[in-house]
Structures are given as C-alpha cells and as structure tokens.
C-alpha cells in the first residue's frame, strides 16, 4: 500500500529531514511513526500527500509512483488519503455536518450521496447528535472526531494522522485511538505519527521509529522506545 525506497529530503540549508528512509506498509496495517520532534515524521506525511517532493528515492502509494505523478493527478491521489492533524483544521463557520459534507462537495460528490454518507460517518465517530453544532461548541476530543469523520467520509484507502492527540488529554486521546482502530478494522490502512508514548505502548501495534530522519527501528507489536 505504501512503499518508501531510499527516500531522502533536505529542506534548504538545514540538516536532512529524511535520510535514506525505506519501509513498506501493507494494506490494512495499523502503524505508528514515532520519534522526537524534528525526526522527520511530519516530512514523511507531507511526502505521502505530495505536498513535498523528495530529493531522491521513490515513494509508491496504492501501486502508483507518486513522484512521477502528473501535477493534475495529485488531487486524485489525495482522495485516497484521509488526513487528520493535531490542530483539527475544521472550518469555524460551518457546522459539524457541513464540515464533513464539505469534503465530499469539493470532490464533486452528488447531493444525495452526501446526504447519505454524512450521518453515517458521524454515527461512526459518535457525534450523530452533534451534527448541527459548530466546532467552537465542541470539546477538543469531539473536534478531532469531526476531523476524523471528514478524513474518512470518502472511504480513503489510507488514513494518515499527524499527532492526532497532540492537543488532547490522555483519556480523550485513547478515545481517538480507539476510533482510529475501529476505522482500521474496516480494512483501511492507518498511519499515525505521534510522540505519545503512553498510547503507543498501550496499543501494541507496529512501530516505525525515526531519529534525525533515519528509520532506526521497525517492529511488529512494538512499544514507543527503549528508554526514551
């Protein structure tokens, strides 16, 4: 599903963000990307979304070489990748349902599909009752659930999450992780970049650890780290 082959990326004038990173993630896997800030986790996600291009190496997503992907095809790549961020990125002027519907509207889904899909996905994330609330009326955990709903409503092949629990307390974080786990069980590949060691240790899933842009560990059923 995701294949990195010797990927390197250096931002202008800085130390390398990724150095010769190689790994493979299969369909339906649940993977934690761990490592301290600046270890290259966010760069990796930006590369997957093709917000950046690597300096060298190749990246395959869903059987496609996304580096050679034409500029105009990038939107179609992103339709296969749902994405959740630490800061939620909800639209404050839209209700919960409108925020989720927006993701379908702008990729040209017809209204009857939207009417059907939005309540379904809101029920999945446990916010069926708050469809007409505005983001500022929700707690952080609820806002992140909306963001997950928006990322998942189009049934992407892969769900990416960049520090999804960074702004949340441990209990709420666990709730979000359970939700992502539930989504993973529908067959969606889930990749979570995090430095929340408590969560990683508790979930016991595959862990890819990055340090200074290098993959230093790739472990099935791993924990956050030895002594970090």
């Amino acid at each position, binding site marked *: 599903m995701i294949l990195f082959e010797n990927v390197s990326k250096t931002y202008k004038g800085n130390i390398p963000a990724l150095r010769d990173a190689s790994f493979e993630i299969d369909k339906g896997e649940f993977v934690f990307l761990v490592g301290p800030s600046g270890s290259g986790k966010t760069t990796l996600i930006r590369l997957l979304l093709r917000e950046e291009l690597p300096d060298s190496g190749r990246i395959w997503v869903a059987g496609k070489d996304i580096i050679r992907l034409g500029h105009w095809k990038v939107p179609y790549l992103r339709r296969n990748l749902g994405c959740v961020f630490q800061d939620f990125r909800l639209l404050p002027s839209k209700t919960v349902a409108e925020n989720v519907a927006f993701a379908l509207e702008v*990729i040209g889904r017809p209204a009857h599909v939207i009417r059907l899909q939005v309540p379904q996905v809101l029920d999945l994330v446990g916010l069926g009752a708050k469809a007409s609330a505005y983001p500022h009326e929700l707690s952080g955990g609820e806002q992140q659930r909306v963001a997950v709903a928006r990322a998942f409503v189009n049934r992407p092949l892969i769900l990416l999450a960049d520090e999804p629990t960074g702004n949340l307390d441990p209990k709420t974080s666990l709730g979000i992780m359970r939700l992502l786990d539930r989504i993973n069980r529908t067959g969606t590949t889930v990749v979570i970049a995090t430095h929340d060691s408590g969560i990683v240790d508790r979930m016991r899933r595959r862990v890819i650890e990055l340090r200074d842009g290098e993959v230093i560990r790739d472990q099935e059923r791993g924990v956050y780290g030895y002594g970090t």
Partner: protein
Amino acid sequence: MALSTRYVSKETLASLRRNRLMTVAAILTVAVSLSLVGVALLLQQGVSNATVRWSNGVNVAVFLQASATPAETLAAHQQLMSMPEVKRCYYMDKKESYQQMRQLYANQPDVYQSVTINEVPPAYRCVLTNANDAVMVGQALQGEPGVRNVVYPGQEITTMRKVSFVVQVIFMSLAAVLFLSALVLVANTIRLAIFARRREVAVMKLVGATNWFIRVPFMMEGLVQGLAGGLVALGAIVLLHWGFESTIGHAGAQNIFQALVIPTSSTILIGVLVAVIGAVMGALSSLLAIRRFLAV
C-alpha cells in the same frame, strides 16, 4: 469532473458579498475605464460617419459658371480625371443642382425662388482617394476657365478630425491608465477573497479537490466584476447616445455635428464590445491573482 453551477454561483455570490466595498470599487473603476473606451469608439465612429455623410463621400465640389461652354466643362472634367488623387467624379447638371438646392433650403423657399434653373451653376462632385487632398485638388481647379468656385467642406471635417483625434488619444490614454488600475483592483479583490477563504482552500486541497474546482469560483468572481463594470459602461454609452441624439440629432442637416450621431445599432454594438472586454479583463485579472496567490 462535476463542477456544479449551483456550487460555483453560491460561492461566487458569497464571496462578492463578503468583499462588498472592494467589489464596488473594482466595478466602478472598470466601468469608468470602459466608458472612456466606449466614448472614444463612439467618437471615432461618429467622425468617420460625418466624413462619409457629406454628400456620399464627396470631398470636393467644383461649381462651373452657369454660362460655361461645353468645351470648358469638358476641360474641367479632363483636368479632374487626370489627377491621381481624384477617385471619381460625377456631373450634376443645372436641373439636378436646382433640385438639390431646393432640398437643402427647404425651410427657406425665398432662397431658391429667387433664382431660375438657368442661373444655377452645374457642378462636378468628386470623391477623393484621400480626403486630406481636398485643398490641393480645389486649388488646382480654382481660376480655370469656366470654373466659378471650388468648395471643399473638408475644412470643417479636417478640423473635426483633428479635434476628435486629440480627444480620442486623451480618452484612450486615460482609459489605459484606468484599465490598468482596474486590473490591479480586481486582482486585489480576488486576492482578498482567496485570503478570506484560505482555510477552505487548505481543506479543499487536502481532501483532493481539483485545481479547477478551487480556482473557478475565484475566476467567476473576477469575471462578474469585470462584466458588471462593462455593463455599467454599456449603460453610460447608451445614455450618452440618447442624450446626444435628442439634443443635436434634430438640429438640422446643415449642422455638421448632426452627422456625428451614429445609428443606435452601432452604439449598442460598441456597448456590447465594451461589456465583453470587461468580462474578459475581469477573468484575466483574477487568473493573475490566482496564479500569484493560490498555490495549487
């Protein structure tokens, strides 16, 4: 890709409403600039109209003596035809000249009643290749045997042309400056609109909206602004036409300005042209803004 009209119109209208003040400023600037273009075009049309209208493009009238002999008439004709500046001439005999006189002075019967047909001079009316040669041709014929006088009302027309040329240059330069500022204003309005919607745009990119899907509402916004300005200019041009027509249009055939009134259909055509220029310009400047401020 499904880019529904409903979505685009909804987004465009919402955005226009959000930036009301800037939108109005942009539309007015477009309108003033295009009105100037329109007036310059009207004037150009009017002047060329006036030139043509003077007796079907006749530039020079050579009046012969009422007593001119056939030989003298023929000599005058030959001299005219030998000049390369002269395109064609036609001879108006006494009877025809008298008829025209009756027409021209229809309101003053005493003028033509005081003369008999025999006293009316026959004339050669000549069309020149270039109207500016009228003076030269006239001077060549002046004083020839049998020639009474040469009239080249080109004089007024030449003056009118010169004046209108200067006016057109002034209007067009003003229009060009205003056009540029209109372009910048529209682009700036679009830039503000993009800024106001940067969160939406970020989400749209994230969930895989195509570039055109993101761009089209902004382009439409610019197009609407340009078109609105163009339509205001169209209105101004039509109003000007009506005003001109109602004040000068009935001043009588002798008034040279009367010839400046161009047909309503031409006015409408100029108006439509101006509106189309507005729409194209609006779309172009929003494209400019999108290229610079919307990294998609």
